[in-house]
């Protein structure tokens, strides 16, 4: 007899009393709160949307607007913000729809794919936001150099460009690292399993 068939017998004969729960226990468990990674992705995703958008509350809008106006950027800022809010709305809708589509009754592969897709929506939104912030930073720097061109020495201009570059890279770097840690921590197991099952299907 095959070695495993032997073990299979032991498997089939394992008692089913160990850890058996009563109907009341099951009822209580079913009512408790899920702590699945899907829930975490949803919570963290919402926090990311809220967090990124509340950054604007830290900026004195009137003062910033006056500055933009001085540099002749008010139209650029106005329209780019309308576009940015449109894009935010698009990402939020996609995020919610993807989240809703996740179903534990799918096959394992489909389920993992959907979870990863939901996470990627938020990642793309963060990437878009970082890009948008970098763009604003660059445009404002160029505009402020332009406005004050006559008062600035070459050395000062180079210094401003350099400082902006460093600040932009630093902000992007820190956010990227935070992102990697957060999702790396949350989705390490899932990503590994997904890769394994995807590889498995490539062998067709």
């Amino acid at each position, binding site marked *: 007899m095959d070695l495993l068939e032997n073990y299979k017998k032991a498997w089939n004969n394992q008692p089913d009393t160990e850890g058996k729960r009563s109907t009341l226990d099951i009822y209580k468990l*079913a009512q408790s709160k899920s702590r699945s990674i899907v829930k975490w992705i949803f919570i963290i995703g919402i926090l990311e949307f809220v967090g990124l958008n509340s950054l604007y509350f830290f900026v004195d809008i009137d003062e910033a607007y006056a500055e933009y106006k001085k540099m002749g950027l008010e139209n650029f800022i106005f329209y780019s913000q309308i576009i940015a809010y449109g894009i935010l709305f698009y990402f939020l809708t996609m995020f919610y729809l993807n989240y809703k589509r996740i179903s534990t009754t799918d096959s394992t592969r489909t389920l993992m794919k959907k979870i990863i897709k939901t996470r990627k929506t938020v990642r793309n939104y963060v990437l878009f936001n970082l890009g948008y912030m970098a763009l604003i930073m660059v445009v404002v720097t160029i505009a402020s150099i332009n406005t004050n061109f006559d008062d600035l020495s070459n050395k000062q201009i180079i210094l401003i460009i350099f400082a902006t570059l460093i600040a932009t890279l630093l902000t992007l770097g820190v956010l990227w690292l935070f992102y990697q840690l957060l999702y790396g921590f949350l989705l390490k197991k899932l990503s590994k*399993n997904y890769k394994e099952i995807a590889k498995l299907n490539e062998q067709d």
Partner: protein
Amino acid sequence: MQKDLENKFLIDFETNQNIAHKICRIYTTNKDAHNDLFQEITIQVWKNYSKFRGDSKFSTWMYRVALNTAISLYRKSTRQPKTQDFNDVVYKIQATAYDDTEELQLKALYKAIHKLSDIEKALIFLYLEDKPYKEIAETLGISNGNARVKMNRAKEKLKNILNP
């Protein structure tokens, strides 16, 4: 209506809870983690129960939801010890009528399964539960042929661990 559904769920789940327990034993190595995963499986089965249409057997459907929870939704708690707690879960099977040799075999089997990857665990579990390839392939979302190939590999790997 909700009450009816709840009652039906409770009966179905109680009768089939052993599926969840076996999956917990495969995917966790201590009692706390076992209970955590069992709780999450119960929540997921209940949450999706209204989608269960009864065109398949409840147990078939539950295998899928429970395995999905173990593989994709459940995150091991960070304080999960390695194998030293093994005997804590595996399993104070002290049923009196239970054969000694079989108990040892079962312990060895669980220990060996713990060394497999999550996907291999799922394959071996479905094999031990005598599921047909078609069902295994559908549960995991892979082709029939791939289920066969991968199953043979997982079985070989398990044999090598059991009998090096």
